[in-house]
């Protein structure tokens, strides 16, 4: 038999075997390496986040705190003195602190509600309860801050609002741990180089003053200077201390700074990383998730029960089943688009809450009146004034610090020119804009402004305004569209249309369009939650179907055998048995929803909100949105707080998953 064998001989078989084993070992190493790389990536991801969250910072003050306290260290200053210093330095903006830190009412009502409402549950001077905030004396407002805010908070207010502390540089944790100290040698070198640089620079300056003959020498020196500067950069990048020593010698250096602390968790947003917190983002996320749960759990479980228990095998049910599987694979951003087009736009009256009487315009009537006047050329404030006003009103979403931005956005000249042209009413509107103090009614002064090119009688103008206001409450008939026809009709009735030129009329209608769009803002928590609910519905359905399928058929038979109806069987037998599976699946789906970012962006999460969400119809932001926002900013400090927010997000998801495991174990013990 071996005579005609085509197989390799003994020797070559053994050699070949050796080769085959070698190849096997190599590939095994490759396979194992893939896993190790995946695990390393995971580790790198976590370490990277931690590295950015904790690390060194250098803090600089615009005004030296010692200067403010008259040279005394901060802890020797009494609370009363602190408050007085803050008040004295901030002036009118002191009220802003009270509003942002202590007021319990809507910011727009801060000045229109009595003190006892505004500071409900907090201390205020006796006998001032029924007064408005503007009627309080300086001592009274100081009293309120003094008695409701802790000492550390007072100090923080002083440092942040008055001394304007600024983190000029931050370093990640690995620098704080391993590259913090600067050696004496480095310091020597730096001093040396800096001295040389100074000398060379002055030489070059000297040469500059002389004639061109010296050009060659100057080139030489400049080359030397370049070398030195390069050396200096290298040195200062060698350690935290070196950089601090060279670039920020006056800044206070803190080796271990955690960007993630309790203040970070409970502070609302800010455009300055060192004061920014994620309070609004966490609240937004919590609101959305709870809502998503309430929407998607019953519907998802219901759909799964239908598919598993009721649906017989016909084309409709097969389509439904396939459809659900396919929906699970649709990219999340497509859901965002769906949410934008249908929930935010078409269902705007519902999702904005306008249909239920919520979110009727937050703009003050003064502004609306002003806008109408402007639209028809009734009032001619300079453009710059309008800009300021717009910026000012949008400030409802901005923190106090943003106001500074707005003010600096207008040059002082512009501001002066603008306010100089104002009458009392305009000024009131402007002031209201910046302090967000609503004027109760359209200001008589504004309506009475005598302007040259006024074409309407004041009475007509007023009727026009009233017609406009009558459309404040969108109704179901308005569904998604500004009811232009009805408006036209109303205008026709109230104003002799011939009095308006076509331009004025068009401008007015345009104003209304804009107004409706502003009013019907469907970019709310409700819209976001509905979008995410649609997104995770397929996941919940599929998971629940599996949980139901896992219930032994014998349970079902036993229940039917006892004479139970189908629903009784489902409700009393199948669901209780399937609950652990359903819960686990749902929680996993929810934890997916928590991290979803893209749909929220498209649906219109606000990127900057400093006010806590106050219900279904509030504008919102969420943790992943903040992470996204901060990640893409150029300053390193934003990366730090993005990392801190990531830790919060991951911990939240971890808690959810842990809950899933605990619930599952609990329920499975019972069965």
């Amino acid at each position: 038999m071996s005579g005609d064998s085509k197989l390799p001989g003994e020797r070559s078989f053994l050699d070949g075997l050796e080769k085959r084993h070698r190849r096997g070992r190599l590939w095994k190493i490759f396979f194992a390496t893939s896993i190790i790389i995946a695990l390393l990536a995971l580790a790198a991801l976590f370490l990277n986040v931690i590295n950015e969250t904790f690390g060194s910072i250098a803090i600089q003050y615009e005004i030296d705190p010692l200067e403010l306290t008259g040279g005394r260290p901060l802890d020797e200053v009494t609370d009363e003195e602190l408050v007085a210093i803050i008040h004295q330095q901030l002036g009118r903006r002191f009220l802003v602190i009270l509003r942002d830190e202590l007021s319990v009412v809507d910011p727009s009502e801060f000045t229109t509600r009595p003190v006892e409402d505004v500071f409900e549950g907090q201390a205020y001077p006796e006998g001032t309860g029924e007064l408005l905030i503007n009627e309080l004396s300086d001592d009274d407002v100081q009293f309120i801050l003094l008695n409701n805010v802790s000492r550390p908070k007072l100090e923080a207010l002083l440092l942040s609002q008055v001394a304007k502390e600024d983190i000029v540089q931050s370093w990640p944790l690995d620098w704080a741990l391993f590259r913090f100290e600067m050696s004496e040698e480095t310091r020597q070198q730096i001093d040396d180089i800096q001295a040389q640089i100074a000398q060379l620079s002055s030489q070059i300056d000297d040469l500059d003053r002389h004639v061109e003959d010296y050009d060659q020498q100057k080139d030489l020196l400049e080359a030397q200077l370049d070398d030195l500067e390069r050396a200096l950069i290298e040195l200062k990048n060698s350690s935290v201390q070196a950089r601090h020593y060279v670039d920020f010698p006056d800044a206070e250096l803190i080796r271990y700074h955690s960007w993630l602390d309790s203040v970070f968790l409970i502070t609302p947003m800010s455009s300055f990383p060192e004061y920014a917190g994620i309070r609004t983002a966490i609240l937004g996320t919590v609101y959305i998730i709870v809502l998503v749960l309430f929407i998607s759990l019953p519907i998802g479980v219901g759909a799964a029960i239908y598919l598993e228990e009721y649906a017989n095998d016909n084309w409709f049910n097969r389509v439904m089943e396939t459809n659900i599987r396919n929906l699970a694979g649709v990219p999340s951003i497509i859901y965002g688009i769906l949410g934008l087009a249908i929930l935010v736009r078409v269902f705007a009256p519902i999702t904005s809450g306008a249909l239920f009487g919520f979110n009727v315009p937050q703009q003050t009537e003064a502004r609306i009146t002003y806008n109408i006047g402007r639209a028809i050329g009734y009032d001619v404030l300079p453009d710059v004034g309008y800009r300021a006003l717009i910026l000012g009103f949008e400030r409802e979403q901005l923190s106090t610090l943003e106001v500074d931005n707005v003010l600096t956005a207008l040059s002082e000249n512009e501001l002066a020119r603008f306010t100089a042209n104002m009458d009392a009413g305009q000024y009131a509107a402007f002031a209201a804009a910046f302090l967000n103090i609503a004027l109760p009614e359209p200001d008589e002064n504004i309506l009475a402004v005598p302007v040259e090119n006024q074409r309407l009688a004041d009475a007509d103008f007023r009727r026009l305004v009233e017609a406009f206001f009558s459309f404040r409450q969108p109704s179901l008939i308005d569904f998604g569209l500004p009811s232009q026809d009805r408006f036209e009709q109303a205008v026709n009735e109230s104003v002799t249309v011939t009095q308006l030129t076509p331009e004025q009329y068009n401008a007015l209608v345009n104003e209304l369009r804009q107004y409706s769009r502003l009013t019907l803002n469907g970019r709310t928590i409700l819209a976001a939650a509905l979008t995410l609910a649609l997104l995770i519905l397929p996941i919940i359905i599929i998971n629940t179907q599996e949980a139901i399928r896992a219930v032994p058929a014998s349970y079902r038979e036993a229940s039917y055998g006892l004479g139970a109806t189908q629903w009784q069987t489902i409700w009393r037998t199948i669901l209780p048995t399937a609950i652990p599976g359903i819960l686990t699946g749902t929680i996993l789906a929810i934890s997916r929803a928590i991290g979803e970012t893209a749909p929220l962006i498209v649906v219109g999460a606000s990127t900057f909100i400093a006010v806590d969400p106050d219900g279904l119809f509030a504008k919102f932001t969420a943790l992943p949105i903040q992470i996204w926002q901060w990640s893409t900013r150029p300053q390193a400090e934003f990366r730090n707080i993005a990392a801190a927010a990531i830790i919060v997000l991951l911990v939240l998801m971890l808690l959810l998953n842990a809950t899933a495991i605990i619930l599952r174990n609990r329920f499975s013990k019972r069965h």
Partner: protein
Amino acid sequence: MLVEQRISHIHEYTIGAPIQAIKSTTSDLRARPRIHERLIKLLLLLCGAISILTTIGLVAILGQESLSFFTRVSWEDSNKQIVVDLSATAVDNILKVSQSGAVIDSEVIRLDDEELRVISIEGDTITVERGYNNTEIAPHRAGIDIYTADTVSLIEFFTGTEWSPQVGKFGVLPLVNATLMTSFIAMLVAIPLGMGAAIYMSEYARPKVRAVIKPVLEILAGIPTVVFGFFALTFMTPLLRSIFGIHNVEIFNTASAGIVVGLLITPLISSMAEDALSAVPQSLREASYGLGATRLETTIKVVLPAATSGIIAAFIVAISRAIGETMIVAIAAGSGPNFTFNPFAAAETMTGHIARISGGDLSYDSIDYNSIFAIGMTLFMMTFALNMFSRRVIARFREQY
């Protein structure tokens, strides 16, 4: 508690209720209409139907808004004027154009507020139909500009290499190209890693090791993509820049985003592929070992071929995931359409573009708003086709054993 409930329920019927009452009714076996049971069924059906409504809504909204994207007319000044006055009568339908050999490449033109349909062009003479699209026929003075209608054609959309809405360029290719680049790079990373991990877990790892590794990989899969985006920007990009040179690699680049998308979909591939590998019957492995094959030979020559369709399905699902992935590319790939094949250059993907332009307060009647849907439709079609395909492959795979 649930057990107790059930017991108390039984009590109601056996002990609590008088047996006699039950007996008297049980002799009547006619079916009773159980209205509430039917209502419940209907209610549950509605729950299921929401998924169908979602799909219908998706397709309708994408279709409708894409349609308005493609039919939206923007008027462009052709810089040509009419040289003879036109009266307000429909018979006055000959236009004399300022420059000879006038090239009017659109079917509809506009003079003031009136639209006119072009019937023929001869030299500097254009014959038109007045009052097109129900516009009012009005007199026009000599010297006014002719506006030509510009719509986005499907051909321009799918073949144009520039996307800049400000100047009316709507070629989706730069976006598609960036999406394909990041997805390709992602697959380049994820296929070897995911397959290696899957093979290791399915064929090599002891059960205890597998019990540890699997959940850890699942953690990787469960991390929000925005965190991956942060990782791409703050870790992967600096890493690439330090390897390939800071001048060669831009801060935003498709390579970094692609690699991190690859890490994101690695667990997806590894877990789906591992399922496929584990589903290969043990008897095939035994047959191979029984013939003197090594573990590697058994894996490569028997197990992998037998699991091919499951593995291909895993790849397809992963590609579709990579194409639809948004946050990583929105953060790390760049924010500006760029038709480039350089992986180290910034380029905006379809998803990244949608996220960026819808991020602000998008006004509903802008071309940007409509373009979201045209891009979204393209994206939806791509992923939908891939998902359908993968489900087919999986179904065939199930039949095999």
